[in-house]
């Protein structure tokens, strides 16, 4: 009987599954690429930011990336708001005999700033000379920066979504399976009714009528979306729990006097989890799509939060500037394809039968 994952060495069955996963090259490479992208997005402020990485000015060293802002007056400008590091870089470059130096990130723009102050707001094509590798959007913001930070927002949203829906779904599903009888029947009917509500429509309706005092932010949006999607995990967990409940080790635990919670979470759940893992990538893909769809329609995160849905929307209303829609669309397709490849590979790797023949 498999135990919960011990700390230092993985159970041989799991090791075998992981080896199988690694052998599916398409999925494994996708996994590596996606993991690299996630790690890079965690340190996005060091790669794509309008703040310098390190500035040495008049003998003092500053690390402006994280932390409080530095005003223009600290660096010899005459204003009180945050200093424009690119302007500072130009000034330092123009004084070759001073000791000042600074390092800017690879893409020196952030997703919220107007990159062409003093010029009309319109989309501009990608150029290498000015560092706008994917061009600018309709109010002069850098598209690459918005893609990267939008990716991060989408990841935060989908991880939180994953955790909440799975915790709620697994708990309720396992309890339904374990208790059976009237509890199971009743909750099943409730879940049937609840899951028949069309998800996107009801999220849009609720999002547009939330009381004005609360406002829309990531937390509220997450709450609404989770409220209408937690039922998805209950089906599988319920049937898996029913199956496990009939096995001898559960009876043994009951006879030994274990409490319900202990039996469910310590004995039944681990056996069900291994197949649960195969659902994760598809849940992430669907939550990224849901967030993008809501942002595209304007019912998701408030402006000016960078998001792919908002970029797609700009792209479709500015088809004369095809780089906007091309970058958002390609990014979305690539990420979803990677996640799908990983999901397929996991499903194949965690398949109990090595060869599945359907007669």
């Amino acid at each position, binding site marked *: 009987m498999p135990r919960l994952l011990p700390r230092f060495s993985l159970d041989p069955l799991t090791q075998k599954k992981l080896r199988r996963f690694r052998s599916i090259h398409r999925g494994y490479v996708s996994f590596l690429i996606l993991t690299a992208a996630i790690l890079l997005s965690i340190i996005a402020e060091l790669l794509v930011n309008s703040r310098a990485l390190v500035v040495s000015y008049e003998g003092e060293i500053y690390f402006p990336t994280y932390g*409080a802002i530095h005003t223009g007056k600290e660096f010899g400008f005459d204003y009180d*708001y*945050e200093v424009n590091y690119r302007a500072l870089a130009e000034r330092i470059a123009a004084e070759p005999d001073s000791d000042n130096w600074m390092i800017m990130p690879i893409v020196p723009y952030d997703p919220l700033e107007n990159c062409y102050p003093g010029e009309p707001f319109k989309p501009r094509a990608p150029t290498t000379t000015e560092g706008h590798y994917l061009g600018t959007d309709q109010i002069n913001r850098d598209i690459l920066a918005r893609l990267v930070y939008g990716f991060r927002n989408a990841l935060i949203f989908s991880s939180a979504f994953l955790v909440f829906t799975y915790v709620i779904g697994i708990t309720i599903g396992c309890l339904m399976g374990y208790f059976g009888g009237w509890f199971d029947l009743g909750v099943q009917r409730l879940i049937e009714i609840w899951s028949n509500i069309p998800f996107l429509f009801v999220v849009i309706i609720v999002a*547009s009528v939330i009381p004005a005092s609360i406002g829309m932010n990531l937390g509220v949006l997450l709450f609404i979306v989770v409220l209408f999607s937690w039922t998805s995990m209950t089906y599988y967990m319920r049937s898996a729990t029913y199956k496990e409940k009939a096995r001898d080790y559960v009876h043994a635990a009951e006879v030994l006097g274990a409490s319900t919670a202990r039996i469910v979470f310590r004995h039944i759940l681990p056996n069900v989890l291994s197949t649960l893992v195969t659902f994760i990538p598809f849940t992430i893909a669907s939550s990224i799509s849901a967030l993008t769809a809501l942002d595209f329609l304007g019912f998701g995160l*408030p*402006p*000016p939060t960078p998001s792919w849905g908002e970029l797609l929307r700009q792209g479709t209303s500015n088809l004369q500037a095809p780089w906007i829609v091309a970058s958002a669309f390609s990014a979305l397709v690539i990420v979803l394809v990677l996640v799908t490849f990983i999901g397929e590979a996991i499903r194949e790797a965690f398949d109990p039968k090595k060869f599945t023949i359907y007669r």
Partner: protein
Amino acid sequence: MNHVRPSSFQLRRALLTLLVPFVFTACGKKEDTATNAPNMEADLAATVAAQSDFYLRKDIAELPSDLTWEDGSELPEFADLNAKKGGTFNYYITDFPRTLRTIGPDATGSIRAYLLDYVEPGFLNPHPNIPDGVFPGLADRWAVDHTNRTVYYHIDPAARWSDGKPLTTADVEFTFYFMRSTHLRAPWYNDFYTKSFTNLVIYDDLTFALVHPEDKPDLAARFGNFVPYPRHAYQDFGAGWIERFQWRITPKLGPYQLFEKDIDKGRSVTLTRDKNWWAKDKRFFRGRFNPDRYRLDVIRDPDKTAESFARGDIDMFSLNTPKFWYENINDQHPEVAAGRILRYKFYNQIPRPDWGLWINTAKPRLNERELRIGLHHATNIELVCAQYFRGDAQVMNTRSDGYGWRTHPTITHRKFDPELARQYFAKAGYTQQGPDGVLMNAKGERLSFTITTPSQTLRDVMSILKQEALKAGLEYNLEALDSTTGFKKIQEKNHELGLVALSRSVELYPRYWEMFHGSNAYEDAYLNEAGQVVQTYAEGKPNPNPQKLKVQTNNMTSTFVPELDRLTEAYGKAETLPEIKTLAAQIEQQIYDSAPWINGWATPFYRGGYWRYVHFPQNFNVASSRTQEEFFLHWIDTDERDEVERARRTGETYPADLQVFDQFKRE
């Protein structure tokens, strides 16, 4: 298997249980609309009798003989008399109408312009090129008696409804009953038709007079341009009229009629021209309303509309948005470069929609004047005008720009100046700058406010303002809601700052009461000696501590300045134009000092494009037009349309043209 036949008792019980639900449905109250329809005529008679101090009947012999009757014959026409009639004009509306009613809930949709505002003549109509001119419509002559505050109207004997019945004073009597009835469920109309008139005097079938509580310089134009409702078609008006009349086609006085077969639910509405319209050859109406069929397709998305226009599915399109003018349908567009689509820019003279940030002074912190002035200096509308609108818009001087004179000789907007803004914020106690660049006061409260807008297309403008406000240490949070929710939030006074505009009627002088009077901000703004609520400064004293915010009014800044109210009430009673102008200047000064409205932008022109086969008069349009079609001066040449279609296929080009009409431009 043990099968037991059910006993007869069980069978009867089962049958009864099945029948029970039907009993309940049969027991429900049935709406018998035929027999329960209200008797409008009886109610009208009762109302006229009860309000006999309003509804007066006099003999035609009592009509004063010393009246100077006018008939507008000295005013110039403004349409092209050689306009060709005929053809189908393809245009669009942004949403399928929720009702065919022109009044009541849901009636202010885009279809109303084509059922009422643009096409139905009023008794008298303001002349669109001459500021205080009035031209006849349903009335063929009228007389104004300023001393007695009365306007006399003589209905044109030729005027008839689209079903052939003549227009008479019975319809006028019905209209006033209708507008003052609580069954209408339109409180603004109830209020207007109660407060603006003291009497309706009917002399005979074609002559009536309206008496007003105050004299105004533009008595005839302001109150004479209403459109009556057909008494014979509203015989079942009363409680529940809204549902009964939701999709009912009622007789019209104008040139375009609607038929059932032309309503394609959810897709389009088509109007048909009445070729025997009674006013077809009358002065001021000939040469207008030229297309035989006016097809309105429902196209919700503005980008899709632009593409439909480029394809030729619709014949005309407004290009006011900078994106459409400079990017989508610009001079490099193939159809524009080939001269098949013509673009124009027309400077008009109208009161501008008052775009701006309406600061809700009822909210904590926003009730401090110094803070509000700081917000003025921290909001960079100049940048929005210069960069977003590409210099096509200008910052408004006052909220009442565009009335033909400068409402205040010197007031102009407060310029964007982060340093100055910081000084004002410091006066309000916000002296420390936090780690994220936002100012804080001693209590640690951040200088952060939310801008709400019901216009999704203004998200970009808000983002620009947010970026610029950071320079002054101010944080703007942005909330772009859909139009209904957003406007409702602002009308419920739940907003902190609202980015919204109210459109303005073309009038001789601005309105202030709705937007700035204290009684529209608080229910208990004014109390009399006994502590009861009164509505005006004149009747009572200002309440130093008002508690009940009044919602669903246009006082979106919750402004309550007693001196301003005193001036506004005097303004409402003013009777001559010079008096009105003097008071307006004083009111504007009060508003400027209180600083609840941050000046937004105004564009002195409108612009658009049209296909070559659409024609306009030589001067293009009239001074008080707000869109190119408002006065229906355009026509289609169907032969030319076929030619242009052919030219698109063969690639033939015409000379391209950008027409700029600045004959009405004012500096």
